[in-house]
């Protein structure tokens, strides 16, 4: 259970988040929508520990994450698949996945996690000796998701997983998210492809200008006029 | 630079120049050569430090090949002077050669940023030192007539003039548009470029000024020594000395390098008795402390101290 309360964050003098409050319950799929520059990535990075918030609190299963380093947050069961995948390009698929299980708790579960990842993404098993840099965008995204899964998370966060990936692979990845969720892992998804995100999620929040401007059940938001106009209207149609 | 900062710098400039002016009377009061030699060293160091300060403090680049310009100035000036050129002309020629060399390597060198510029200039300096050491390995000694006519006071007054010149140059630079442009580059080069500051031209200007002064200092060095190894003037020790003095005193300020130079030479001469390089151990450690904790050097420390004292009456 993730609880973010009144979170404020800045890049230098630039205020990126101005008081964000949201929750992600155990086993839920929650989407975070909003235009570019709204602060969605900043929010995820703050939760993951890559950014120190200026104010507010982040609680995970009751504990305050504020003082922890990013690697410690991974140990607690929160994993982030960052925007742009950020893989270790010179290393193989297997090595990338192996490194995902570096944290102590994850290390104990490494073998099972690896089996699960290969079951979810069979193409990775075939290419496990291949250097990641030479994979396609979609395959790299699978490695990125797989790497995060190797840390045996209870909450998986993803920052724009569909960016720059062929539609066929996007649906495959989204399908895998459903399966991951079914296994009991919560999903917190930042996604440009609003339609796909809302079809997948139970609930969603809308972030604009560093603040939450809307929230609700995914189905309800699909009908919401503001959302429809801003993100689902004819000009906002995504491939 | 904020207005109060500029005003206090101007006060410092006046103070230092007054001090230098007072020193002009020293040879009349004191006949001892060792005292004059000591003050000469301090004055030479002030010039050296200020010259390095121009590129580091005002244009924000760490030039680790500074000794090359000092050495070129020394080499050219001494060669010309021994052949009969009047010393002032010879020194100016030395500075000109140093500056010319700087401008030739400057444009390609400034394509490097930060640390790469530093190690690149270090390598260049070493190339020069190596070459000179191979081409001119023998010691250079003044002809007997020059030794007989050697006047320490001439060197002394030249050193005084040079030190004053370096302080004036930095003072003029700090207040000028050129100087402000340079400082903008030091703070944030990309932003400065975007707002119309021609970065390369300014950096080259700073380099020219810096190496010209260094060349003059080198010429003075060549004039001062009765005998020396030409390659010695190219030794990286001169660069490192300048770096230490400037950083410890306060890089980018007017009076910092002066303070640093005085402190450095005093400690060096005073501690050299027991342990030749002891001053380097102290300054090395001090330098690290300053980089980590107090980038503004002693000048910043003094400013903080004054702040603390100023707060007391209200507390």
């Amino acid at each position, binding site marked *: 259970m993730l609880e973010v309360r009144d979170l404020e964050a800045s890049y230098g003098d630039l205020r990126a988040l101005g008081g964000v409050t949201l929750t992600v319950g155990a086993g839920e799929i929650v989407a975070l929508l909003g235009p570019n520059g709204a602060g969605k990535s900043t929010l995820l990075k703050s939760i*993951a*520990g*890559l950014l120190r918030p200026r104010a507010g609190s982040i609680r995970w299963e009751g504990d305050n994450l504020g003082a922890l*380093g*990013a*690697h410690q947050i*991974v*140990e607690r069961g929160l994993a*982030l698949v*960052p925007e742009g995948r*950020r893989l*270790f*390009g*010179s*290393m193989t698929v297997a*090595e990338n996945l*192996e*490194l*995902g*299980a*570096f*944290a102590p708790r994850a290390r104990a579960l490494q073998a099972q996690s690896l089996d699960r990842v290969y079951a979810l993404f069979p193409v990775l098993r075939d290419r496990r000796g291949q250097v990641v840099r030479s994979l396609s965008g979609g395959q790299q995204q699978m490695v990125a998701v797989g*790497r*995060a899964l190797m*840390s045996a998370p209870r909450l998986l966060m993803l920052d724009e997983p569909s960016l720059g990936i062929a539609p066929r692979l996007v649906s495959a990845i989204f399908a895998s998210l459903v399966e991951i969720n079914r296994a009991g892992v919560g999903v917190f998804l930042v996604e440009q492809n609003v339609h796909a995100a809302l079809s997948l999620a139970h609930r969603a929040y809308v972030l604009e200008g560093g603040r939450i401007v809307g929230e609700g059940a995914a189905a309800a938001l699909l009908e919401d006029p503001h959302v429809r106009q801003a993100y689902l209207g004819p000009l906002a149609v995504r491939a | 630079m904020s207005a109060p900062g500029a005003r206090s710098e101007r006060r410092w400039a006046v103070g230092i120049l007054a001090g230098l002016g007072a020193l002009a009377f020293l040879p009349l009061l004191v006949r001892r050569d060792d005292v004059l030699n000591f003050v000469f060293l301090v004055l030479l160091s002030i010039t050296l430090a200020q010259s390095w300060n121009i590129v580091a403090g005002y244009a924000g680049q*760490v030039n680790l090949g500074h000794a090359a310009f000092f050495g070129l100035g020394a080499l050219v000036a001494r060669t010309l002077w021994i052949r009969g050129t009047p010393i002032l002309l010879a020194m100016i020629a030395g500075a000109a050669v140093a500056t010319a060399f700087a401008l030739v390597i400057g444009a*390609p*060198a400034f*394509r*490097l*940023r*930060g*640390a*790469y510029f*530093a*190690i*690149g200039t270090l*390598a*260049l300096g*070493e*190339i020069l030192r*190596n*070459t000179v050491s191979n081409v001119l390995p023998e010691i250079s000694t003044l002809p007997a007539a020059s030794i007989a006519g050697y006047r320490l006071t001439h060197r002394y007054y030249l050193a005084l003039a040079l030190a004053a010149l370096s302080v004036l140059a930095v003072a003029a630079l700090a207040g000028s548009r050129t100087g402000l442009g340079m400082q903008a580059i030091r703070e944030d080069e990309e932003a400065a470029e975007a707002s119309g500051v021609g970065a390369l031209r300014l950096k080259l200007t700073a380099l020219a000024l810096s190496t010209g002064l260094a060349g003059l200092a080198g010429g003075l060095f060549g004039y001062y020594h009765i005998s020396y190894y030409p390659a010695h003037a190219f030794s*990286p020790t001169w660069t*490192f000395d300048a770096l230490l003095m400037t*950083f410890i005193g306060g890089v980018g300020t007017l009076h910092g390098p002066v303070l640093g130079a005085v402190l450095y030479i005093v400690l060096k001469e005073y501690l050299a008795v027991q*342990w*030749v*390089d*002891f001053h*380097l*151990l102290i*300054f*090395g*450690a*001090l*330098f*690290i402390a300053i*980089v*980590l904790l107090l980038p503004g050097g002693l000048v910043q420390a003094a400013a903080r101290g004054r702040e603390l004292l100023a707060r007391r009456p209200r507390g």
Partner: protein
Amino acid sequence: MRILAQQLILGLMLGGLYGLAAAGLSLVFGVLKVLNVAHGELIMLGGYAAFFVVALLGLDPFASLLLVLPLSLLLGVVLYAVLFGFVVRAHEETRIKNSLLIGFGLALALHALAVRLWTADERSIITPYGGSVLRVGGLSIPLMRVLILALAFALIGALHLLLTRWRWGKAIRATAEDWEAALLSGIDVRRAYLLAFALGTALAGAAGTLVAIGYSVSPSIGLEWTLKALIVVVLAGLGSMIGTFVGGLVLGAAEALSAYAFGGPYREVVGLAIFVVVLVARPRGLFGR
């Protein structure tokens, strides 16, 4: 012709040592983005450590590595904890500049300390089998230098294995590539930094030992070796230890060739000149891929 071949062989053997010297610098620079210009002084200290280990304990010079390596490792841990651990708190560009300055201060302090403790005299480790020479195809190859080259290669090989097989070795490589992604994988990046720095210092110590055995040490060799290491790193680029070793060999060969062509004294200049040219040709620095 024979003289050229002779010079080349000797140059290559020295080059192996250049490669080893560069490996430590390359590792630290690649992982921590820290340019430790006191690296040469660490090599110097390693040489003195080996000298005294042999002089006081009577060990075989090559066996002294067994003591110098852990000692250097420890020194690396201390230097990181006390000094460079603070430098890595800044972001990359400030970090490189600060580390350069701090390395400079450290180099001066270590040099002064060495002069005080051991005087400016050169020290060399003398061995009973030191004078042996192998005769191969009309060439005379000092046995010592062969052993040194072999050891340098072995150490680089060991490093390569460490970085590719050891869990923390992979973590170090991951950190070098993308430290934020490494954090997100659960890697304690600060510990990776510490390990990399300690390893780098250990490599410097090993290089110093071999220098003391095959050549000589004095407090002033620091700057010289730092420059050699820098030249090789710029030549070979970052990321491959084997590549760095080869870069060292190339530098050694280049020096030998230039000494043959232009005479001994200009040996040093060719390396420095290559360095400057490569640096300027790649102004984005060593991280631009």
